[in-house]
């Protein structure tokens, strides 16, 4: 007979027995040592602390991310607004700030620069915007906008900057507008010279 069968069989003999007070004290002492030892308490505390720290870290990261994201948006909005300011020096300063602060592409800022190369009334601003855009040589839209600007630009100084920029980008699609500039009897000799040089470079 095993122990289980023995206890089952003699159940009545055990049920009315109560633990003696002396044994109860020992039992509780052992139980306390087993379940609430110092090391266990420390481990539990560490576990709670780790969980709390994780939550804290997550909240902090979320806060910093959202904060820096909104700071970046704010800074970008300021630049976009400055690029449409009525004062030419403010627009120019915004283009220089863009060049210093933004090494990666940003659609809204690129759009603002496209407006400047097409419509700005000041040559210095247009030329600075062209210089800023040329750095994004892998962006197809940048190339398209520079070619479109060359097709309609009438200011010789800006024409020369566009010609040199498209030549630097080795943009073959600029060949046709370049040829039109060469054929146009109203083009300045300096502009025609730059256009001829650019076409030669594009062919090599």
């Amino acid at each position, binding site marked *: 007979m095993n122990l289980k069968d023995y206890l089952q069989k003699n159940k009545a003999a055990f049920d009315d027995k109560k633990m003696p007070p002396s044994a109860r004290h020992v039992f509780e002492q052992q139980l306390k040592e087993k379940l609430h030892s110092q090391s266990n308490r420390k481990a539990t505390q560490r576990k709670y602390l780790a969980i709390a720290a994780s939550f804290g870290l997550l909240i902090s990261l979320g806060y910093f991310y959202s904060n820096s994201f909104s700071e970046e948006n704010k800074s970008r909005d300021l630049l976009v607004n400055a690029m449409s300011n009525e004062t*030419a020096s403010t627009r120019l300063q915004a283009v220089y700030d863009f060049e210093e602060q933004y090494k990666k592409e940003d659609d809204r800022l690129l759009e603002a620069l496209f407006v400047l190369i097409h419509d700005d009334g000041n*040559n210095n*601003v247009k*030329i*600075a915007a062209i210089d800023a855009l040329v750095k994004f040589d892998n962006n197809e839209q940048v190339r398209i906008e520079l070619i479109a600007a060359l097709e309609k630009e009438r200011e010789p*100084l800006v024409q*020369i900057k566009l010609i*040199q920029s498209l030549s630097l980008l080795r943009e073959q699609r600029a060949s046709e507008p370049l040829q039109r500039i060469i054929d146009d009897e*109203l083009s300045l000799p*300096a502009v025609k010279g730059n256009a001829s040089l650019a076409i030669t470079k594009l062919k090599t």
Partner: protein
Amino acid sequence: MLLCIITCINAQEKKVAFNKGVLKICTSSKINIKGYDGNEVIIKKLNYKYKINYNPNFKFDYNIGDTIRHSLPDSISRYLYNSTEKKLGEGLTPIGQKVSDQSDNLGLTIEQKSGELIIRDGTVNGGANKQYSLINGNNRYELLIPNSLKLQWNTSECEKSKINVYFVSSNSWELSNFKGEVEITSSYGSISLIDVSGPVLANTIGGNIEVVFDKIVPENLYSLISNDGHIAIRLPENSNLNIHASGNEILSNLDFEIATDKILDTAREMNLKLNGGKVKMNLDAGFGNIYLRKN
């Protein structure tokens, strides 16, 4: 056919009350502009002896202040040059078609509208509803302008026409002692800026740009572009500058920190700092040199 109408005009000066807004100057005439702490734009026409060899068939001495109108082929425009000998006009009064603002005899059109004062070459009625600009390439003026204004100066036309008309001149268009914002566009002419605090945005095709900081140090944005001329700047060595310079050669006797130095296909490009690099200066001389000299 060459048609000459000769008028004799004496010394002229005009004052226009204007101290807030944009002063637009759109004329090929030689102008020396000075800033001052006042409330009027003061225009003086300078008269002095001049010699012109415009055409092999027309060689004469003349006094600035007199006018001759030549009718040139319609393909370009019609020009008005100051000329002829003053004594020919003595005791005579102008007859025939006159410049649009004849009362001041300046040969300029002066228009004032909200926030803008526009000074441009005078116009003449060419008949059949045509107005021709009188392009006064040889006129000389001196302007005193309030420092509170913003100056937009184009040495040809402010509105771009279909035809490019440019004037080649060995003299500079000069601006001095001005404290307001400046935009200058010049073609085949040099620009001279003396103690102009800025911001300054100046560009020229085929001309030089010369800047002197004599009594002031640079404190505002300067952007100077010359396609083929040099850019020469004289400045105090305690200037606090952050310069981006691009040109054939960059020469200086100032103790710049060279932040970057690139040799490109057709130019040399540098970022230079002086005393920390606070004030932005962008210099693009194209195929020309850049000279940075200490006072």
